């Protein structure tokens, strides 16, 4: 039991070691107290943020169908690249890593813009229709690309491409402004809202409602089911509600026949059932492919559309206001009859020109001689209607115009409708243009001067003639008829006008180009002047841009009409030529079916059998057109849908 004399300072040293250990213990204890007790709930929320992911259960947007059930718009699965700023990390590093790993080029400014466009502040859609292989690449480089993920979304697809594009419209990703306008609060950057056409007007019906599920994910973002972790915040939060499909009144076969009949001309055509307001065809050319907007439309494509001299984005039937030309004359005649100022046998003499108030008002003919109402309509005599208008006066024309909805919007279920103009003394005065001169009523009487109409307005007038005074709201989407108003027209007056319109086509009048044996087509041609007719030039000798607009409007058959139509060809020359031919193609289809040649002797220039591609195999639509800023698009959907971030279980099995 000998203890060598220890170092004298040993007790102090041992005490020092104890102090050292206690110091470490207290220091670590304080640190743990700070992290776990003081900051515990903060770190708990961070850990919850780590393992929970809100998975949006995307509900498909409703399909669009034509009146025969043909699919005009459906949904397809697409993969999109999303950046989540809430995940933390450097945007610049991620941009560099994307270039290196995915071969995807994007600038910092484009990323910032994508965040600004998104209705969800922390999520930005960087690219759509990306290859599915990116899914694996992003997972393999989880650390560098942690801000990124691939999401499956459902995107609009219009199998007919350009066909009826202006009626269908297009969709786009919901912007913060859209969210405000629609009073929607969404957690998903992939909400598509209608931006034009019925896609816009029927948007809320088509949209449906996204569901929400909270999933438990591991550090790679994969969903994990671990019975040990009973996490109360995980589970289904909201059921998705799919959008309702919408049946349209359009007849796609008619639509295609009409569009092909335009053969490159610019203009519009609308066919409507006057007894219901159902729109059977809606042509506005040049047109655009709504699929283009379903891809995030590139700046070049957009500029090309906006700067196209043909203005393809213009929805001509409701956004183009033109002089009505001679198609207005039946209206003047009707007002004359109804007001008792004219009768069917009232005769004016046409000598080719009428001096009025120091002005020479011309007819398109050297002189029709003595003209009564029927031959005036049949031959579209200007001099007759100058006299008629002069007698009727602008006030009566205005009053009746208001009854027929001229100068007013029709209320069609498409966005962006404008109205034409029915000039009046009040209107002129309000514009500070001075008093109305009687000489100004004369051009209005032949559809020129202070008078413009949109094609749909004019169609509405002819539809009212067809029903004998009942006006329905024109509608693209199917549904019960919506009565607008009833105009009291005496059957006698109506019979006179109908007879005149019948003669235009069937009595050797200006519209004989639309004569169809077996169908009593009633119509009126119109030639709206672009260049003063007094120049004396034949319209076909003018440059294309200076030629007159060609109108052709009417209804068929004469008794119990089932269709009213308007055709408008910009700079088309005489309405009796190009307009009548287009209308004829459509009417032949409607009355004789797809293959008029079987019913009728002479062949039709527009062969309908090649005009109606089946919706399954559209001949003119590249299903997956490449998007310039994006890499090649995936060809279809992989057989196995990866169980991964944001799989839209609302749509997937």
């Amino acid at each position, binding site marked *: 039991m000998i203890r060598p004399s220890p170092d004298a300072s040993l007790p102090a040293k041992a005490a020092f070691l104890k102090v050292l250990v206690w110091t470490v213990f207290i220091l670590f204890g304080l640190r743990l107290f700070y992290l776990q007790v003081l900051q515990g709930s903060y770190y708990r929320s961070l850990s919850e943020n780590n393992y929970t992911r809100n998975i949006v259960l995307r509900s498909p947007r409703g399909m669009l169908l034509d009146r025969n059930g043909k699919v005009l718009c459906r949904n397809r699965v697409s993969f999109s690249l999303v950046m989540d700023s809430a995940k933390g990390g450097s945007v610049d590093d991620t941009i560099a890593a994307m270039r290196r790993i995915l071969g995807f080029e994007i600038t910092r400014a484009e990323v910032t813009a994508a965040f600004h466009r998104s209705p969800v502040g922390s999520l930005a859609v960087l690219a759509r229709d990306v290859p599915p292989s990116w899914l694996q690449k992003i997972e393999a480089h989880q*650390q560098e690309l942690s801000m990124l993920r691939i999401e499956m979304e459902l995107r609009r697809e219009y199998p007919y491409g350009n066909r009826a594009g202006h009626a269908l419209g297009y969709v786009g990703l919901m912007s913060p402004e859209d969210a405000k306008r629609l009073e929607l609060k969404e957690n998903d950057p992939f909400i598509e809202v209608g931006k034009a056409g019925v896609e816009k007007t029927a948007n809320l019906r088509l949209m449906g409602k996204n569901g929400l599920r909270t999933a438990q994910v591991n550090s790679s973002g994969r969903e994990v089911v*671990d019975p040990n972790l009973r996490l109360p915040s995980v589970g289904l939060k909201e059921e998705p509600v799919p959008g309702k499909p919408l049946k349209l009144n359009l007849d796609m076969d008619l639509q295609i026949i009409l569009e092909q009949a335009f053969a490159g001309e610019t203009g519009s055509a609308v066919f409507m059932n006057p007894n219901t307001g159902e729109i059977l065809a809606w042509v506005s050319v040049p047109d655009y492919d709504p699929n283009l907007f379903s891809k995030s439309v590139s700046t070049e494509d957009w500029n090309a559309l906006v700067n196209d001299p043909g203005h393809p984005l213009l929805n001509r039937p409701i956004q183009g206001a033109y002089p009505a030309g001679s198609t207005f004359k039946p209206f003047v005649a009707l007002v004359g009859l109804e007001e008792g100022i004219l009768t069917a046998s009232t005769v004016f003499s046409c000598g080719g020109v009428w001096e009025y108030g120091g002005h020479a008002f011309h007819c398109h003919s050297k002189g029709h001689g003595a003209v009564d109402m029927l031959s005036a309509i049949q031959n579209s005599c200007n001099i007759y209607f100058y006299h008629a208008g002069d007698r009727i006066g602008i006030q009566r024309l205005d009053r009746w115009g208001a009854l027929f909805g001229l100068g007013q919007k029709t209320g069609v279920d498409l966005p962006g409708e404008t109205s034409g103009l029915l000039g009046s003394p009040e209107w002129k005065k309000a514009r500070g243009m001075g008093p109305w001169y009687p000489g100004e009523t004369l051009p209005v009487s032949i559809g020129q001067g202070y008078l413009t109409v949109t094609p749909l307005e004019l169609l509405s007038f002819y539809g009212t003639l067809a029903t004998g005074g009942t006006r329905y709201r024109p509608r693209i989407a199917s549904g019960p008829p919506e009565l607008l108003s009833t105009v009291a027209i005496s059957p006698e007056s109506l019979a006179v006008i109908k007879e005149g319109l019948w003669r235009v086509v069937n009595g050797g009048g200006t519209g004989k180009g639309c004569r169809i044996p077996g169908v009593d087509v009633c119509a009126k041609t119109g030639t709206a002047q672009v260049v003063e007719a007094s120049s004396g030039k034949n319209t076909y000798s003018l440059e294309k841009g200076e030629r007159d607009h060609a109108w052709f409007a009417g209804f068929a058959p004469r008794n119990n009409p089932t269709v009213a139509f308007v055709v408008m060809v910009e700079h088309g020359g005489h309405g009796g030529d190009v307009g009548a031919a287009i209308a004829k193609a459509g009417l032949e289809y409607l009355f004789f079916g797809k293959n008029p040649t079987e019913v009728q002797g002479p062949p039709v220039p527009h062969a309908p059998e090649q005009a109606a591609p089946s919706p399954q195999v559209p001949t003119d639509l590249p299903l997956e057109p490449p998007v310039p800023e994006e890499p090649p698009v995936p060809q279809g959907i992989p057989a196995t849908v990866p169980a991964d971030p944001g799989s839209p279980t609302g749509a997937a099995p």
Partner: protein
Amino acid sequence: MRQALKGYVVYGDHLTSLLFLALLVVGSIMVHSATTGTKFTSLAPRQTAWCFVAAAVYLLATLIPYDIWIEYSYVLYGLCIVVLVAVMLFGHAVAGSRSWLILGPVGFQPSEFAKVAAALAGAGYLKDLSQKVIGLREFGMLCAIIGLPMVLTLVEPDFGTATTFLPMVLAAFFLSRLSLGQILKWAGVAVVAGAVLFVIGWFTFFKPYQKERILTFVNPGTNLRGAGYQVHQARIAVGSGEVTGKGLYSGTQNRLNFLPAPHTDFVFGVIAEETGFVGSMALLAIFLALLARFAGTILLARDLEGRFLVCCSFAVILYHLVINVGMVIGLVPTTGIPLPFISYGGSSLIGLTLFVGLAANVRAHRFLR
């Protein structure tokens, strides 16, 4: 033998044994929790097996009087040096460093054993001194004994493990008769030398990941991925445990893979997440009790070599604890140093068990002549 056992029952360091056993149990459970449901599931039973081996080794280390251990210290030390050199030449590389020796189904890290061999060799050197005083020359000698395996470990290269030799140098310092002035002087020299070595190392042999770890520690905001990501996720794991924890086997950071290396370097993160502040402090209290016990043993040890062994045990275990737990709770930079007795790994467990066993040994045999 009977007598010896009886003596051990009376004088043995039972508190240390108890604390050590508690750590083994905690380690077994936590490695199990950290590996269940991962590709490392098979490691938990292995760790439990290692714990039984460790218990046996502990008994040997504490029952055989430390004089006998010291007697064979040079042999053990020489053997370790030879193996370290062999490993350097023929070793199995893991993560770029040749630090593994594969014997059949079991892999060893000889550096973990070289540490305790160096402590024993140092004790042996002290035992043979006529004047039982650590002066400058003796201190230099001890440094050489400790430094040789340390340098061999450094060139493997295993930077983290090499640093675990340094606490023994401090232990030697601590027991020396060098005055405070001398200590400070030499400490100053050491700091300058360390700084110079650090700068040289920065531009020569530090690996990019090591530099990144240091930079991440200095400025954690710069790199939320990579090393910064680990530190960030470890902090979330610790903090989200709150007061009582999420429950064993229920840590989301652990089980859903957010916590890096949950069964090895970051096992304390699992403990903090699943058992909370209460559990973490309980574990730290075990370590506190163990280390305080060693501090007391220093006073009781009957000779300088015994004191040196205890001091080495104290310093090595405290160093591991501070570096590992400090890393998990974000007080020191990320290094690959395990939490003693808890982190998965047989070599480290056995090596550190020898240290604890020898420290208990010194206390148990304090009256033996």
